[in-house]
């Protein structure tokens, strides 16, 4: 399939669905409280622009910070695990416990501890908990997946532990890390949104709170506009991280190599 069709087909489908939606809302006279039409959502973007962009910025900011901290924390812990089996044995079960406990269940507790007046810190912590585990698990696996014969060679040629880590284990782990980052980027966003709903308070000012507020007041068009922004944000995060993956791997990694058929 050529590139034009690859873009044209899904875009065409999208336009068709929006057109059908618009037609259905008008023709069947569906109440805007139940389902606003695309035109109403577009108008909400304009009329609520200030609220939407402020909420978007809040959600985006916390997502990015949580994601960056998840990558830093996950990689740091993975490096520690790769250097010491004892530390890994001691800590890994707790990392799993943190991961498998639903974030919605932890949210109220964290909110009480950190405080309603520090709600952004609460969101940050909860999003971090959700986002960091894939980074930790995959990077740990990647650091361990370095070719054992290469490790032997590095040792034979007098490489230090640090050189083996930096020049051998880390590049071996890079495809694993980048793959985990694509998962974690999305999870960080989900974490922020879920945490905002779970915290359930007006001191949180992100897109999720905007949706809560808009639906309570039956401003469905605004709620849909916020939802559209969340989707776009998730897509942008995914594409940025995919581009990063391509930039770092395309010269050598099998996953990024196009083959003639």
């Amino acid at each position: 399939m050529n590139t034009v069709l690859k873009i044209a087909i899904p875009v065409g489908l999208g336009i068709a669905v929006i057109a059908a939606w618009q037609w259905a809302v008008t023709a069947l006279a569906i109440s805007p409280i139940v389902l606003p039409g695309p035109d109403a959502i577009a108008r909400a973007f304009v009329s609520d622009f200030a609220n939407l962009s402020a909420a978007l910025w809040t959600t985006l900011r916390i997502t990015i910070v949580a994601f960056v901290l998840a990558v830093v924390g996950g990689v740091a812990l993975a490096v520690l695990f790769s250097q010491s089996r004892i530390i890994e044995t001691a800590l890994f079960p707790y990392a799993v416990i943190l991961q498998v406990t639903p974030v919605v269940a932890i949210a109220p507790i964290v909110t009480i501890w950190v405080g309603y007046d520090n709600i952004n810190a609460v969101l940050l912590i909860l999003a971090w908990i959700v986002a960091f585990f894939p980074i930790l698990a995959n990077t740990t696996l990647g650091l361990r997946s370095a070719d054992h014969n290469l490790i032997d060679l590095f040792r034979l040629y007098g490489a230090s532990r640090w050189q083996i880590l930096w020049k051998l284990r880390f590049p071996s782990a890079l495809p694993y890390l980048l793959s985990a980052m694509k998962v974690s980027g999305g999870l960080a966003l989900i974490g922020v949104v879920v945490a905002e709903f779970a915290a359930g308070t007006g001191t949180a000012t992100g897109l999720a709170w905007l949706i809560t507020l808009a639906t309570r007041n039956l401003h469905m068009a605004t709620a849909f506009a916020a939802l559209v922004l969340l989707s776009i944000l998730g897509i942008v995060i995914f594409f940025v991280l995919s581009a990063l993956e391509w930039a770092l791997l395309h010269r050598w990694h099998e996953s990024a190599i196009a083959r003639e058929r």
Partner: protein
Amino acid sequence: MPALLTLSAISKTFANGTVALGPMDLSIQEGEFVSLVGPSGCGKSTALRLIAGLIAPTGGTVQFPQGRPETGFVFQEPTLMPWADALANAMRLKGVAASEAEDRAAAALKRVGLSDFLHAYPRALSGGMKMRVSIARALAAGPKLLLMDEPFAALDEFTRQALNDDLLALWAEDKLTVTFVTHSVFESAYLSTRVVMVTPRPGRIAAVIDQHPPVPRDASFRLTPEFSAYAGHISNALKQAMEGAH
């Protein structure tokens, strides 16, 4: 003249109880090309790893009367870093400044005929070329002792013979001492000054065959009665080693 390395009653039993090797006594002189020949899984690779110091013997000792020589190691697989180009793969890590390491790596790659491929990534290279990078990496270390673990086993016959000749040229030029593991009778007959026959697990020395092939030699040596005689000897010794094990 003292030996370059001496294995005394060396043995290796792995943690799972497998007796891989030994006891084995073997002394290798400077400048020798010694092939360890035996069926797969006879502990030849274990012997090589013991010499390299990558694993510790269960019993016996590995001694280097003249001190541990600079050692190069070549595996059966090219074992290259896929994220690094040929030059970076052949660069040494320690002992020399980065610029010098790069010069040496480039020189080593030139010697194995890859001067046009310094910045090629492994995925762009053929199996034979990857093995050449692997050999260049070993050469860049400036080794006195070169340990090779079935390095050409995965290559096609043409590439294998070309690399055999190149290896002999490097051995003669650098006055290397080579310890070469193979299960190919013909390869060992062509390359070696001494063939050490190893029995199936646990690996013990079944026979030692001294050879005096002409230096330098080329592919025509494979057509001589002398070569046939070497191959015949090795083949017989291999057969006896296998029968002795049963």
